[in-house]
């Protein structure tokens, strides 16, 4: 005698019913797992978003573009006039991003080399001559630490403020 093992809708329903019970039983666990994954992923996603934001800020600073659009408050985008470039200092400490417990704010710390250009002014003859020949600026590179604060509003990260500190 051959036992028909072909599946019928009924059997499927049954099976489904059979299966349904364990599924119904398993749903809170899956949701929990999903939550756990989300909980685990969220900081990583936040951190990635902040890194992207930092890279965008670097690109704009180095290309001379306006950075106001990256700030929660565009008025905080203003930076010292003499800043001409910021590049990652790969010989410095690793980048560090620390998220707040509530996931709505973060602080970043990035080793960098800051390039500045300061106008010599024209208070003396030499400075006037330097300007007359198309120069007259002091260009310097210094190792610094970029300290940045970030805020998340409506699911989007923005820069709250940035500042440099000595290494």
């Amino acid at each position: 005698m051959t036992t028909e093992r072909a599946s019928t809708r009924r059997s499927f329903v049954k099976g489904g019913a059979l299966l349904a019970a364990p599924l119904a039983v398993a749903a809170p666990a899956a949701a929990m797992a999903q939550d756990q994954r989300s909980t685990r992923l969220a900081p990583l996603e936040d951190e990635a978003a902040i890194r992207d934001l930092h890279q965008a800020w670097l690109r704009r600073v180095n290309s001379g573009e306006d950075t106001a659009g990256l700030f929660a408050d565009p008025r905080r985008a203003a930076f010292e006039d003499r800043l001409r470039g910021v590049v990652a200092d790969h010989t410095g400490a690793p980048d560090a991003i620390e998220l707040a417990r509530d996931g709505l704010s973060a602080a970043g710390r990035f080793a960098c080399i800051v390039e500045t250009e300061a106008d010599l002014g024209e208070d003396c003859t030499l400075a006037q001559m330097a300007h007359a020949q198309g120069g007259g600026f002091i260009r310097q590179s210094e190792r610094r630490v970029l300290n940045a604060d970030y805020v998340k509003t409506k699911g989007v990260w923005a820069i709250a403020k940035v500042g440099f500190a000595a290494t």
Partner: protein
Amino acid sequence: MPGTPYPKLQMHRIAYTKLTPQQILARLGPAATSGPASAAPPSDALAGKQLRIVTDKGLTLAYRFNGTRRLSVAENGGRSVDAGYGALTLDDVVLFSHLIPGTQRGYTVVVDRETNQATVFELWFSGYEDNREVQREIHYGYVEQPGQAAPAGRHAPTNRVEGKGFYWRQDTGTETLEFYPSAAYSHFVELSRTGGELGFSAPSDYVKIDDDLFICTRTECEFSGTFTLYVMDVNRAQQVGVRLGFDANDALDYYVFHGRGEWLGQIAQFEKFGDTAGDVVPPPAGAGKGARRIYRPLKTLPKMTKAEVDALVAVKTKVFDKPSPMAGNRGPSTGWLAGKTLTLRYDNGPVMDYRFDDAETLHWRKDGGGWTQARYEAWESMPGVILFGHLLEGEPNHDGHMIVADFDYGLVTCFNGYLNTPYFANEAGVKTLFGVIEMEGLVPPKYNRHHFTDEMLGRAVSWNYSPGLTSMHLYSTPHTVSWIIFTDSGAGGLEWSGPGAFVKIREGLYFLYWLEEACNGTLGTVLVNLRTMHDAGIGYHCGEEGLSLGQMGAHARHAGRFDITRFYQLKTRGDAA
């Protein structure tokens, strides 16, 4: 009795006539027909030849040379015009020059017959607000040879002349010392024309033909506007050149010349090793034909009357009030004078009594008059030698005393700056006062004094005042300080100069000043210590911001020395020959 070799007015004091284009055209007319004068017989190197010169910027010049004095030229395929010309040769190089009749334009062309490379200097008047200033545009190119490809190479801008110096004697009898401490400017001392008291600076071009031969130009901007160009062989110290412009009497100078010279030495360059680039001070992007960067200090100098100076000084006077970029590398000031009382007795000046209250405040009185309080600052540049300075409030010419006092020897020298000078009242003047120190426990010498010296003559010394602010001094005559500003690449850029003086204080210690006459009006005084390669200095300046006394301080590097002392020895008349 024959006269002295000195002009009534030095170049920077001559009020050159503002010639009109019509006046210039009229004066050029005969020379356009005859060509430039020449003390030597004109070269026949080009006689009977035809040349077509093609340049990279598109200018083409087709020449037919009819003998040694006449040519016809067609510009850019246009109609031929006849003109006079003059040509001279130096090895394989032919230099020829001509004007275009009926215009204020002309060309000087340098052709290397070995390579067929050619460089054309297009010259014209009335291209700047001062019409007499010759303008130039350089066209690099070659002489077209039928059936041959154009040479790949070109003469090219270079910094390889930078640091050199030559004595030149033209076949006209003109003698000069010419220094190339910059890759964009040059410095020249007219030994025969003006007696060699002062050197002057001018924008220049440097073009490399090969390792021996270079083209140099200078345009005497801010002065007569005269243009000089020559090809020089730096090995053989020979030159051929042309001079075009109007002298102080508005007479046309247009001649070609041979010259022979002497190498004066080589000073340091500060570009990175391997950097031989020329055109170190390019004009702004998009600037027009002939544009170049030129330092024109007199244009920006505020020119004040005595009344304006007096009124300004009464309300705006600053003494050592804020750090200046010129003092970024200053040394520490000293309080050594605090509490001391002394007298500085100048042989050729006043008797100055001092009471030093503390490290920043003193009281002075002049020739036994009343005491006046003043702010001062002092530096001990070498043990026992103090530089200090203060203003003399109440003096009619707003004097400032910049003083070096040697307490080991009882000697003092003062550069006495003052205003209300003849040309512009805010332009500083200076008197040098020598004398002795009188104070308790110190016996000054009876006869010995500090004295002027030529030990700094010919030296070049770089001065780094603060980041981004570095210059180099060149002491080209016993009475000249020239200063060169470096570009970001370390090349010498703009240059200017003024009267100066040098006093020996001790071995390796010199007190010197420069006056920015017809410039910014500043009197700069510095005590140069060649042992520490550091200076301490005080600047005395009056401008629209008022009268100021400010500190200076820089780190030095010795950049070398030109051997020029022999050119400044006074000789019994007739010895010079």
